[in-house]
């Protein structure tokens, strides 16, 4: 029978987008469906660490080796998503010398460049480190923007002919006997970009082969075809600071533990994390003690954090998996390795494989392995090129070096725009139109917002992840409205209003976890601006009953 697509990838996270790009570059016809916006699942909810492998250098040297290899690849192919911050494993007086030595040796065993710094040298690198930090190991950790990386993969997949369908939730697997031949999706009625279908409708998409890359949700997808995929979702909290207190990744040099990492991420620093198994990746408690622990524990490394402002916290769910019968009790002990479950081999049901476990840093290697597997199934012989071909935005690394253009923008805004857009900067920012800043906290101009709307339509959260607009210290209070304005006249007033409400509510969701001190003042100011000044909480445009204007003051 004729299929809609050769390969159907489920899940628009790093793994799914990576697979879609890989296969599309090999000339395979690919469709990717994602329930929400790209990165909505685990990818958009990580601390943004580009592993050097140092964190696994003692406990899991195979992973560590893979990390350092992929770390080097991503620096090349995704330079506009990666910041080469370097990392430190710092030791406090109460941390064991023995473990420090093991860590150093482990790094050297895995070919991870590692240098020991004295406490004073470490503080020269990072002045805000605690005075009693005694030693540190310097490794090539980096920071990566998972949103940009994921979007760049999707964009490149589309350039190679793939169809990427967001806001399309899989509601059923199409199974004929022992063969899975596609899915049924429901097109969400949110304000996303839907070039194919109307909101609220369902669509059957048939495929020669289905790849279940839904991570923590893989079990739910499997269950639609009565397949048992025993993912063990584990949640972790990330607390976002308003500014970068550090410009280097700071790891606590001790065996696994909660609250042991600070990652400088774009304009912020992210504190992480916890590791606790949950039963449902969509529904788990987000608790105060987790946020407090991040601040209190990491203050031991960087004292300024105690008084610093946090702008939000969010939780991510790791798609942990171990082969049935391993029987690990504590989720922190579950391997971070990934597993390719070929349901034909495993369950006798053909047409689908599931991919579980793994970590962001090695997404490309995972995608390569799965794509090889799928190509073998389909009889495609083309080789993987993802390690050599730069992603859109990283084709020309010179843009981030000296002499970058300022496009008539103020220096730091030009710099940040160039860092975000990479080699696409000129295409996006060269305009004869006025190009005011729309989001002041992050320095995002109209041209960049419009470029994101071109890509993702009226979904302002999709615009947000592409540009970082509304991710700064006002958490959208002052710019959500401006972003929404940019949708008009492409989209009608009602769509714009819904998009604004959706973004504003989404920003609030994370900001709730930072409601004290300066951020509570910010929240009240935001609330006053939107409710008092704009009356968005009682907007008559949303009323069912017509407002009787004649009852009110009509002027003197």
């Amino acid at each position, binding site marked *: 029978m004729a299929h809609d697509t050769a390969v159907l990838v489920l899940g628009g996270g790093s793994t799914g987008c990576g697979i879609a790009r890989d296969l599309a570059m090999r000339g395979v016809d690919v469709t990717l469906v994602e329930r929400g916006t790209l990165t909505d699942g685990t990818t958009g909810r990580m601390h943004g660490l580009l592993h050097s492998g140092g964190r696994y250098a003692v406990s899991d040297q195979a992973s560590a080796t893979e990390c350092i290899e992929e770390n080097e690849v991503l620096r090349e192919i995704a330079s506009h998503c990666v910041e080469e911050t370097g990392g430190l494993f710092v030791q406090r007086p109460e941390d064991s010398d023995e473990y420090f030595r093991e860590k150093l040796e482990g790094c050297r065993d895995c070919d991870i460049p590692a240098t020991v710094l004295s406490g004073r040298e470490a503080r020269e690198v990072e002045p805000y480190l605690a005075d009693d930090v005694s030693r540190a190991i310097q490794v090539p950790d980096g920071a990566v923007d998972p949103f940009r990386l994921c979007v760049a993969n999707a964009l490149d997949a589309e350039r190679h002919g793939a169809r990427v369908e967001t806001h399309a939730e899989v509601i059923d697997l199409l199974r004929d006997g022992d063969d899975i031949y596609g899915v049924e999706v429901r097109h969400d009625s949110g304000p996303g970009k839907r070039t194919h279908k109307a909101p609220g409708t369902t669509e059957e998409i048939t495929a020669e082969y289905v790849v279940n890359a839904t991570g923590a949700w893989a079990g739910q997808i499997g269950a639609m075809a009565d397949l048992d995929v025993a993912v063990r979702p584990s949640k972790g909290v990330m607390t976002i600071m308003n500014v970068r207190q550090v410009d280097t990744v700071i790891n606590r040099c001790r065996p696994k533990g909660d609250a042991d990492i600070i990652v400088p991420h774009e304009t912020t620093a992210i504190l992480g994390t916890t590791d606790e198994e949950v039963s449902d990746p969509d529904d788990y408690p987000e608790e105060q003690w987790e946020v407090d622990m991040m601040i209190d524990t990491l203050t031991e490394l960087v004292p300024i954090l105690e008084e610093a402002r946090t702008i939000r916290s969010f939780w991510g769910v790791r798609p942990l998996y171990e082969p049935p019968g391993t029987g690990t009790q504590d989720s922190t002990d579950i391997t971070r390795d990934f597993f390719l479950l070929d349901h034909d081999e495993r369950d006798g049901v053909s047409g689908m494989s599931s991919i579980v476990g793994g970590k962001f840093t090695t997404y490309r290697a995972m995608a390569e392995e799965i794509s090889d597997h799928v190509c073998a199934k389909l009889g495609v012989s083309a080789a993987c090129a993802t390690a050599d071909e730069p992603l859109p935005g990283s084709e020309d690394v010179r843009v981030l070096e000296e002499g970058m253009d300022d496009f008539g923008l103020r220096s730091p805004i030009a710099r940040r725009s160039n860092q975000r857009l990479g080699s696409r900067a000129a295409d996006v920012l060269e305009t004869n*139109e006025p190009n005011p800043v729309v989001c002041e906290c992050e320095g995002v101009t109209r041209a960049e917002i419009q470029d994101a709307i071109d890509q993702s339509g009226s979904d302002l959260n999709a615009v947000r992840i592409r540009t970082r607009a509304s991710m700064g210290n006002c958490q959208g209070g002052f710019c959500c409205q401006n972003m929404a304005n940019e949708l*008009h006249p492409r989209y009608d007033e009602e769509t714009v209003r819904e998009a604004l409400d959706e973004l504003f509510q989404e920003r609030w969701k994370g900001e709730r976890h930072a409601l*004290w001190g300066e951020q509570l003042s910010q929240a*009240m100011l935001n609330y006053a601006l939107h409710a008092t000044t704009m009356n968005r909480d009682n907007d008559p445009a949303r009323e069912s009953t017509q407002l009787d204007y*004649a009852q009110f003051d009509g*002027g003197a």
Partner: protein
Amino acid sequence: MAITDDVLVIGGGLAGATAALAAAETTEDARIRLVTYKQSTLRHASGLIDVLGYAPGTTDDQQQPIADPYTALESLPESHPYQRVGIDAVRDALAFFDEIAGDAYAGAHTDRNALVPTHGGTVKPTARYPVSTAEGLASDDRDTLLVGFETLPDFDAPLAAAHLEAAGAPFDARGVTLSFPGIGRDDAKVTRYAHLLDHDERVETPSVTGETGAREALAATVNPHLDEESRVGFPAILGDAHPAAVREALSDALGAAVFEVPMGPPSLPGLRLEDLLYDALESAGVRVTSGVPVVDYETVAADSTGENSTADETTTAAIDHVIVDRNGAQIPHEADQYVLATGGLVGKGVESNRERVTEGIFDCYVPHATDRYDWFVDDVFGEQPYARFGVVPDEELRPLGTDDNPEFSNLRAAGAVLGDYDYAAEKSGAGVSLATGYVAGTRAGEACQ
């Protein structure tokens, strides 16, 4: 030597200024001083004087705005600041404001609320509005052209026009986005726009040959887009020092009424209101000390007078003097009566950390849940407990301690530092500041006679 006055008002926003003015009016020759640390939140706000736009406690479902705020005041909960001062005080305070504002504000001709278009595109109920917005009322059915500017991304005129129609406004609205003549950079501040028009600076514009005045140039830019509409709305940037002259010039050149749509921070109408209040303070002889914080206080020593020698346990302490910090130097300021008008969370009169919510100067009791996860609800526009943080006053507006007794005998509180009302949801911010400021200032003035 302490700096000595009769009434000391701490806080320079709407509530503080009103309190100082009311105190000055109450007493002929008393010395009134207003100490304000930083600039007030007036410039964050729209410049509208909201009294009550929506009844509290009904935010879940869409509700109709209140047409007559005074009738609605009756049904407010007992703890609401309006109930504390009484409805007559609200009227008196509004009359007091009308007198101060003179012809800068409109709306006093009726008890009814007006519906003013907002820069978000909808309308909001308010009791008094700057004259610059008067021609734009939504109950007025004249067709309207809204003008936005390419370099001011927070107001999209065509979208706002469509939004007004969606809100059922009884007139046709159309929006255009234009280029503002004389603005060279995309990030020019709104004060720059206002200054251009205030001073009618010479600018070059494509619509006119050669250089021309900024007002004429702006009108020439708008004129080709005007199509029979009898009024034109601009974002609220039409001058700071001379707004009336700017509007008049535009109105004459366009042959249409001209009005402003209030904007978010920084708000020119808010700045003008601040100027108006500070001019009034100067005229009233109120001494203003700005730029320095009040950081501490001392109470009258219990044995200083001998009158309290019976050591009555329930005696309420009195403030003897407060300490003003000037770059590390501690300057005592003493007065007979004090008014606390330091604002809420935004104005920094109410502070918080991960464990507590506090009032920063006198440590007056601020009720709040011990668990900070009870400070909010999940719906961003739901009934937010944090929006109600503030001190609890008695009928005299004296902040009460945990024991329900006044914290101090000579301290009253006014404005957003008061708790138990959500000004954002109710649209009651300026009204509460006026009413409580007026009462606190009046009582303080009377007490030191």
